[in-house]
């Protein structure tokens, strides 16, 4: 287990390094360079930038300096606002984390419940309804879904308030962000549950006289959960990127909105910093979900 953990952590570290490298060199490849005069808002900021990023030095050296800064939590300065990017990220990510955390929690909880129901009522109406709806939810782009929800429930029916900084109502954003991963987990849980229910050890449990509820919750669910755990990493990644869309639609001032804005403004240091920050989060999420997977699944030998 230790060996495996070390191996995975090393792979994750390599991945983070590669992401940083790709991001940095890709941004440097843009004609004129990311800190071009035209794009700087005023000469004062430009002067600060040049001094800060040692633009006279070779690219490789700049990269090492940039990496060193990253390790100290220094992401540079936004071209658009002139603020410390680390500060912007800290401030905006709090909002995104709240939104994403709620979405992830509900997605897992509801996905597991719905998936189990669908598996147990196989080929009866609850199964059909659940599978129809979840198939529909994974087939609608999130911004369309979010816009429709916003229009119908907030603007037309006025059941829920529109999100604003004074009155932050997370209901609709969380639902819009949650539906895709929830549907995915539902489908995953269903197929994994069906697979497990067909296993011999379930027959053994029934033959022992275990009551049906225990067969499902003690013997089946725990085995069925194992494949779902592997999805948690990708789900966090999906929620972080999905958050860009949802935050923009609901005008929530989170990191997602900030990222989309920086792309439209061609605020390169901001794009670079946010990409690396989100990428590191995703890599960590995947790492954790892989390690947990190994922990709960005793079938797998640790090599």
């Amino acid at each position, binding site marked *: 287990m230790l060996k495996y953990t070390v191996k995975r952590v090393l792979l994750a570290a390599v991945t983070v390094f590669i992401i940083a490298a790709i991001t940095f060199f890709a941004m440097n490849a843009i004609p004129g360079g990311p800190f071009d005069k035209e794009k700087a808002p005023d000469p004062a900021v430009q002067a600060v930038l040049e001094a800060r990023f040692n633009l006279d030095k070779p690219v490789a050296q700049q990269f090492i300096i940039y990496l060193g800064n990253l390790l100290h939590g220094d992401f540079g300065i936004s071209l658009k606002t002139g603020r410390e990017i680390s500060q912007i990220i800290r401030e905006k990510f709090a909002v995104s984390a709240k939104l994403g955390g709620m979405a992830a929690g509900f997605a897992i909880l509801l996905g597991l419940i719905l998936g189990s129901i669908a598996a147990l009522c196989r080929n009866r109406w609850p199964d059909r309804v659940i599978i129809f709806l979840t198939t529909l939810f994974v087939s609608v782009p999130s911004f369309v879904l979010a816009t429709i929800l916003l229009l119908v429930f907030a603007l037309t029916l006025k059941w829920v308030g529109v999100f604003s900084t004074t009155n932050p109502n997370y209901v609709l954003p969380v639902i819009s962000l949650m539906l895709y991963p929830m549907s995915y987990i539902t489908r995953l849980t269903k197929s994994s549950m069906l697979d497990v229910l067909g296993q011999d050890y379930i*027959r*053994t449990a029934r033959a022992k006289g275990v009551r049906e509820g225990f067969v499902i919750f003690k013997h089946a669910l725990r085995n069925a959960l194992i494949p779902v755990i592997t999805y948690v990493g990708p789900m966090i990644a999906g929620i972080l990127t999905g958050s860009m869309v949802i935050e923009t639609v609901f005008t929530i001032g989170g990191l997602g909105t900030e990222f989309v804005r920086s792309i439209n403004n061609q605020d390169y240091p901001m794009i670079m910093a946010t990409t690396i920050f989100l990428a590191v989060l995703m890599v960590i999420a995947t790492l954790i979900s892989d390690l947990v997977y190994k922990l709960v*699944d005793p079938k797998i030998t640790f090599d």
Partner: protein
Amino acid sequence: MSTPLLQVKDLCTSFNVDSGEVRAVNGISFNLEKGKVLGIVGESGSGKSVTAYSIMRILVEPGRITGGQILFNGEDIVRYSKKQMREFRGKRVSIIFQDPMTSLNPVYTIGNQLREAILLHTDRNREQANARALEMLQLVGVNEPEKRLKQYPYELSGGMRQRVMIAMALACEPDILIADEPTTALDVTIQAQILELMQELQKKMGMAIIMITHDLGVIADMCDEIIVMYAGRICERGTADEIFYNPRHEYTKGLMRSIPRLDTNHARLIPIAGSPVDLTNMPKGCAFASRCDRCMKICLTELPEELDINDDHKAACWMNVKQVYDEAAAKKEAESK
């Protein structure tokens, strides 16, 4: 005569699948007395396992019992409620399965799974259950039982797992143990050990055993009675000696020719030609007819009934009728001369 421990009367079990109704078990009847060993033999798909699952009522969708009775001490368990059935399973009748590699839940320890069975059916508390689990593991000959209790199934070999399965099945001292091909998935040397263990335990604990196998050799010296099944029906039954030395159904004879023996000079084994019938579309007459070397016209149109060969032996084969008929005809001829 007292009522037998288990009476199966005209049991029918079917699976409804896309291509029609698969009649896996097609009206079989047999009795099992206390403390006896009954062997059920047949090739894959003959309905042996389905019979066992029907008795336990652990058939998986879309399988269901479509007719007949299963009387345990005179009570029909087909009519049992779910709750009654839960108390019946594991306590009255237990089962061990073919593949020990997949029959234990991979995410729980051996101890946990043994304890579960004990706690379900006895008044023991957790500690007593643990003690009982340990005792059972010792009984089935698992080495280092204390350590095993804390281990997960993947840490044990196939033979060990099958021993654990046996321990689990016998933990609540059931009246009947059903062994569904308990040795098929194991190495030959381990097979012998497991069979020996089962015989030993049977003597010690005195439960009745239904031994299901496709390998006649496995059960030869273990069973009091043997039933030979083909395509969901019983084609022959009798004591082990009768079945082995005096088979009276063409299918049984075929089975006999296909097992290796040391006491005869057969140069080679003779397989039974063809493959089992399509159970969704059962032919008229004898199900074995198309594969039978000595098939007669009547076999294709009329289902042979089970007829007594002697007190210890019944067979459902038209050849027996023909034999009697021929003898009678020969006698008549001799008389007329």
